[in-house]
């Protein structure tokens, strides 16, 4: 590097020379290699990769054929260490990979495919700019980051560094700079979004000789690393931006206040400052234009509050970093009382590009009042975590899914925390929110500095709020009371809620306190500290209520509320570790007895349960979750005679008249638990056979009928009478029951009505409701099936109907669904098996109308769809795309939803319903708007699972008992002692998860034999031993700690 540049001309000449040199190197055919030396790639071992690459290059004698360069953050940190060779993006590099890259890619020009970036569908993306991660980004601030060597100023100069400053110095017109900044619409990127030009103009017009420019690089939000990456990757952009600002406002001294936790950024900035001074781009009489500017680094010392502007200035002055009241604003009275311009790293780094390419150009990016781009740091449970820059206003969902690749856990997205401790959580209903200042604050979040933490179902929102509050509580400087004491009080309440000690009034109290702290705190820290709590209350209020009222943490996070994550996840709260450990000791009868404490139907559930327990199993962090349903299946298959559970006889209870309407899983479960309390309810069932959906909708190849019959008989053996072919509204009414002296009724009538298609021609013959089709076959033993069957819908009924049609001899069965396979509500295993059995999926397709011939269906016309914006369910809404096509069909089975018609059975009583037309019932007791009528199951929740219906039946049984006696007698709810052996000192057994064997596909057609087969005993026991025993030490007696 040569010496100091004395004039604007010398800078231009140097730039010209460097550019020529670079072109010469390019024309000599040197392959450029950029190796990421950002902090996270270094942490994943980038330095060792680089050493190995250099060694291999030397060994192969190829050093002169490449141009190897260290660069700042390339972006996809989760792929680190990463490098770009030519134009090919290599990820997860290890030192031992380098030899292959040199031998193959550099020597022979063959891409090393196994190391190159792949699309989700497995195809290799050979050009970096074609990667989904980069395609939707617009890099302005990060334009040079990842392309230049940040430690070599010449590299920056070649790429246009300091040209904007030179132009500004040449023009010598600060007002022109202000005008351009105004046109650009740039707003402060630190979070608050104040128009940058106005701040500059205040500082410029402030009276006083000595002025300062200060850069806020005290980036302290958990999960944020935008500013760090900019300084590490392109420090000169910040220096140049600050120099231009200094020139504009008339300052000669600047400070960069940077966190001590960022040693690499400090180091790179130091090097950059030294090189800039050496080149004469800082210091006295810069480029001979008569402008002096000196820049110093001041390091923070671990106080988050110093990110607040007045606290930061106090800290530079050498004091405790406590904020001071505003006004006066720093622009008038800042450092040592002098006018001070304070902007954040990203704001300054935008300035050179704006002045080079014009404010108009900058303002052409972004939307509405928010112009330009914003850098975000993607972190949390997101596939492509890393650093991205997008036009302001991009929908949140596009950022998370298109660029971020969605959640990394395969679990459903729950919320994005944006803006750190000052920000808030955005739930999946709002994935369409444009990322701009106004839209985000409408949702109770803020743009903030750009930290974006993605959370999936495994995050407890109360715990998240507590985490952030704990953070601000610790970081509150203590100067003002609302922040110091108020956040402490809020934290105490949150701790109480998480420990299961919450009170009904707590949520309201949190809101009051939060609003008060926001209004009365001295600085930004306190004024925003309650945001994470307020925003989670706003969007996830139900989780607070569950913690307080039900003592339930749905994510399985809060220790005091979680017995074992599997049991917490089970709607019925079955003691899973208990029976699994009993199976591991071959004590099947005891295991079943324990299961039936909470859920009377282990045999049924071992076939059809959707096992949320396995989704939460902690073993999945070691290898794969315990195969809980498989273990249960083996256990129930060992039962010869069903043992009855503990029943507490009560003559008094036996005299009370209770009616249950509907003998599905909810009604039968309610009857079972009432019987255990000594009641003898009478169950009314409209169909000839009890079982509800279990026998009407679920095909017998999934759930053999004798299994259902056995467990129904068990309930009958407990003193429950079931009256079949007695339909509500036809054979009796609620009023008539009341007239017969019935004291309480449990309504569990399901949601038996199929929803119609609502398209032209839907009344043609051959179009039937899938549920009706299943019901006909399952109850009568025969149903008419077409040759070419089209099933419309993506839920379990659709797949059940399709697989039933295959078994009944349909030649072709096609399931038409308007969204994509990933979001089909049917169980994954069922879809998989349907495909094996020859069912075709016609995804992203919506029916348009029915073609009928002679009144009979002949075909259905469909339109291809594509996925558009996100809807309220957090899924992408299908939109029309492409031309209508025709699918031949002689039978169409419609399975697009189920409904409840309350007409005919509660007209005379007047029960309240919710917006979807289902019954309104208390979530704890099942009580409806009529005190003596309780309801549960699909009639309340809409179509749901068997185990949820069981849970609703249990709750209603307890609710009815309380209604009749005024007391709480649910003795089964206590955790039971289990004396199985467990040695906490031993490592978990090293056995992989096994799946249940299936009968071969060719043996499935034309019959309804059960597809899933049980394991051998040795397999079942071994699978049960895989359990990590999260219940250890948390049970009364037995294996206490």
């Amino acid at each position: 590097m040569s010496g100091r540049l004395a004039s604007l001309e010398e800078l231009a000449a140097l730039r010209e020379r460097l550019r020529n040199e670079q072109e010469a190197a390019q024309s000599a055919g040197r392959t450029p290699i950029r190796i990421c030396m950002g902090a996270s790639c270094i942490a994943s071992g980038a330095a060792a990769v680089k050493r190995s690459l250099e060694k291999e290059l030397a060994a192969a004698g190829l050093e002169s054929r490449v141009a190897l360069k260290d660069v700042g953050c390339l972006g996809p940190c989760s792929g680190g260490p990463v490098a770009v060779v030519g134009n090919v993006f290599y990820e997860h590099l290890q030192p031992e990979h380098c030899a292959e890259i040199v031998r193959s890619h550099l020597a022979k020009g063959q891409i090393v495919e196994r190391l190159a970036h792949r699309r989700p569908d497995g195809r290799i993306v050979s050009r970096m700019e074609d990667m989904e991660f980069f395609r939707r980004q617009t890099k302005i601030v990060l334009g040079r980051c990842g392309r230049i060597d940040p430690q070599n100023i010449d590299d920056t100069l070649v790429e246009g560094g300091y040209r904007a400053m030179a132009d500004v110095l040449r023009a010598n017109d600060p007002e022109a700079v202000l005008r351009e900044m105004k046109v650009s619409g740039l707003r402060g990127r630190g979070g608050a979004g104040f128009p940058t030009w106005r701040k500059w103009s205040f500082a410029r017009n402030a009276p006083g000789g000595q002025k300062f420019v200060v850069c806020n690089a005290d980036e302290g939000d958990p999960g944020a690393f935008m500013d760090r990456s900019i300084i590490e990757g392109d420090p000169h952009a910040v220096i140049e931006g600050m120099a231009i600002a200094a020139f504009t406002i008339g300052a000669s001294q600047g400070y960069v206040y940077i966190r001590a936790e960022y040693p690499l950024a400090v180091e790179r900035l130091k090097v950059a400052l030294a090189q800039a001074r050496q080149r004469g781009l800082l210091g006295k009489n810069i480029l001979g234009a008569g402008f002096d500017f000196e820049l110093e680094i001041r390091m923070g010392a671990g106080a988050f509050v110093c990110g607040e502007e007045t606290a930061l200035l106090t800290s530079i002055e050498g004091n405790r970093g406590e904020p001071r009241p505003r006004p006066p604003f720093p622009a008038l009275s800042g450092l040592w009382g002098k006018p001070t311009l304070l902007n954040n790293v990203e704001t300054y780094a935008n300035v050179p590009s704006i002045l080079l390419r014009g404010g108009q150009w900058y303002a052409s990016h972004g939307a509405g009042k928010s112009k330009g781009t914003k850098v975000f740091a993607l972190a949390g449970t997101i596939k492509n975590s890393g650093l991205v820059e997008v036009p302001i206003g991009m929908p949140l969902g596009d950022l998370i899914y298109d660029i971020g690749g969605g959640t990394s856990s395969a679990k459903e997205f729950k919320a994005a925390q944006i803006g750190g401790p000052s920000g808030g959580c955005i739930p999946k209903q709002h994935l369409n929110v444009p990322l701009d200042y106004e839209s985000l604050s409408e949702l109770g979040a803020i743009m903030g500095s750009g930290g974006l933490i993605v959370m999936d179902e495994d995050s407890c929102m109360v715990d998240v709020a507590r985490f952030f509050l704990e953070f601000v509580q610790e970081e509150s400087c203590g100067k003002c009371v609302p922040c110091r004491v108020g956040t402490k009080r809020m934290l105490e309440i949150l701790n109480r809620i998480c420990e299961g000690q919450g009170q009904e009034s707590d949520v309201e109290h949190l809101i009051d306190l939060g609003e008060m702290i926001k209004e009365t705190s001295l600085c930004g820290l306190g004024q925003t500290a309650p945001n994470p709590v307020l925003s989670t209350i706003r969007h996830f209020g139900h989780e607070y209520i569950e913690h307080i009222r039900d003592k339930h943490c749905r994510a399985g996070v809060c220790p005091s509320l979680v017995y074992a994550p599997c049991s917490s996840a089970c709607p019925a709260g079955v003691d899973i570790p208990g029976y699994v450990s009993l199976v591991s000791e071959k004590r099947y009868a005891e295991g079943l007895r324990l299961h039936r404490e909470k859920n009377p139907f282990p045999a049924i559930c071992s076939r059809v349960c959707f096992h949320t327990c396995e989704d939460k199993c902690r073993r999945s962090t070691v290898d794969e979750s315990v195969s809980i349903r498989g273990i249960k299946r083996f256990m129930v298959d060992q039962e010869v005679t069903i043992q009855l559970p503990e029943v507490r006889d009560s003559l008094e209870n036996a005299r009370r008249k209770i009616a249950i309407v509907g003998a599905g899983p909810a009604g039968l479960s309610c009857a079972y638990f009432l019987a255990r309390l000594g009641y003898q309810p009478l169950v009314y069932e409209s169909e000839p056979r009890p079982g509800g959906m279990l026998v009407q909708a679920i095909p017998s190849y999934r759930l053999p009928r004798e299994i259902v019959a056995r467990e129904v008989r068990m309930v009958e053996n407990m003193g429950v009478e079931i009256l079949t072919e007695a339909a509500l509204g036809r054979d009796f009414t609620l009023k008539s029951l009341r007239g017969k002296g019935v004291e309480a009724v449990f309504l569990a009538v399901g949601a038996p009505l199929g929803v119609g298609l609502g398209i032209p021609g839907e009344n043609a013959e051959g179009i039937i409701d899938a549920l009706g089709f299943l019901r006909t076959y399952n109850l009568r033993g025969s149903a008419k099936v077409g040759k070419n069957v089209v099933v419309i819908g993506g839920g379990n009924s659709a797949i059940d109907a399709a697989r039933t049609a295959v078994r009944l001899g349909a030649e072709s069965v096609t399931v038409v669904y308007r969204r994509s396979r990933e979001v089909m509500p049917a169980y994954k295993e069922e879809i998989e098996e349907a495909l094996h059995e020859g069912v075709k999926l016609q995804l992203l397709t919506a029916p348009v109308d029915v073609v009928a011939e002679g009144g009979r269906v002949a075909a259905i016309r469909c339109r291809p769809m594509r996925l558009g914006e996100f809807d309220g369910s957090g899924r992408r809404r299908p939109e029309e795309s492409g031309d209508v096509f025709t699918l031949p069909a002689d039978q169409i089975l419609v399975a697009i939803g189920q409904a409840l018609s309350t007409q005919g059975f509660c007209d005379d009583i007047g029960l309240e319903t919710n917006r979807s037309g289902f019954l309104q019932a208390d979530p704890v007791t099942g009580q409806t708007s009529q005190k003596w009528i309780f309801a549960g199951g699909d009639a309340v929740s809409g179509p749901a699972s068997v185990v949820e219906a069981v849970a609703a039946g249990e709750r209603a049984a307890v609710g009815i008992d309380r209604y009749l006696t005024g007391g709480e007698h649910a003795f089964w709810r206590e955790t039971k002692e289990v004396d199985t052996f467990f040695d906490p000192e031993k490592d978990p057994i090293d056995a992989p998860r096994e799946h249940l064997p299936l009968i071969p596909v060719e043996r499935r057609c034309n019959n309804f034999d059960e597809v899933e087969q049980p394991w051998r005993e040795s397999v079942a026991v071994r699978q049960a031993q895989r359990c990590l025993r999260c219940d250890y030490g948390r049970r009364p007696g037995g294996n206490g700690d």
Partner: protein
Amino acid sequence: MSIGENSCSTCKQATEEELLAQLDDVLAGYAEVPGALIPVLQITQAMFGYLPETALRKISAKLKKPYSEVAGVVGFYSFFNTVPRGRHVVRVCLGTACYVRGGKAVLAALKTALRVEVGETTADRMFSLDVGRCFGACGLAPVIMIDDDVHQRVRPSRVVQILDQYRRETKAVGQGDGK
């Protein structure tokens, strides 16, 4: 953090008196710099490994700031330590899974073994004890982290063994360097 780590070699070599003399040189260079207190404290901590009272008294005198003000600044920033930190930082995870699987018992065992409370450092400056939230290794809870190493399924009975491993390594390194 790097500042603290870099200091270890120097603090071994130089006595406290020598370091205090070096501090004089540093202070001379900062006498006229506005807002010098925090940078001076950072340099001092890098030299000593922590901020001993003797050094703070000297800084107070040379920068002409009341000792109360110096102490106030030191107390405000979490980066500054007035007690030496150990060579190894032991962090016990008290996230959900670890808490449930006996993280508290492990913490109690560590307190007994090291004879310190959370946030303190052993007399031989070998270990500092801290608690943390989830380290992301819940399947093998309870977990502790010593420096950057994660130890999974830690049992209270084995805590001493694990600590000894670090004691031995530290000694071995010391001898290897010929110190």
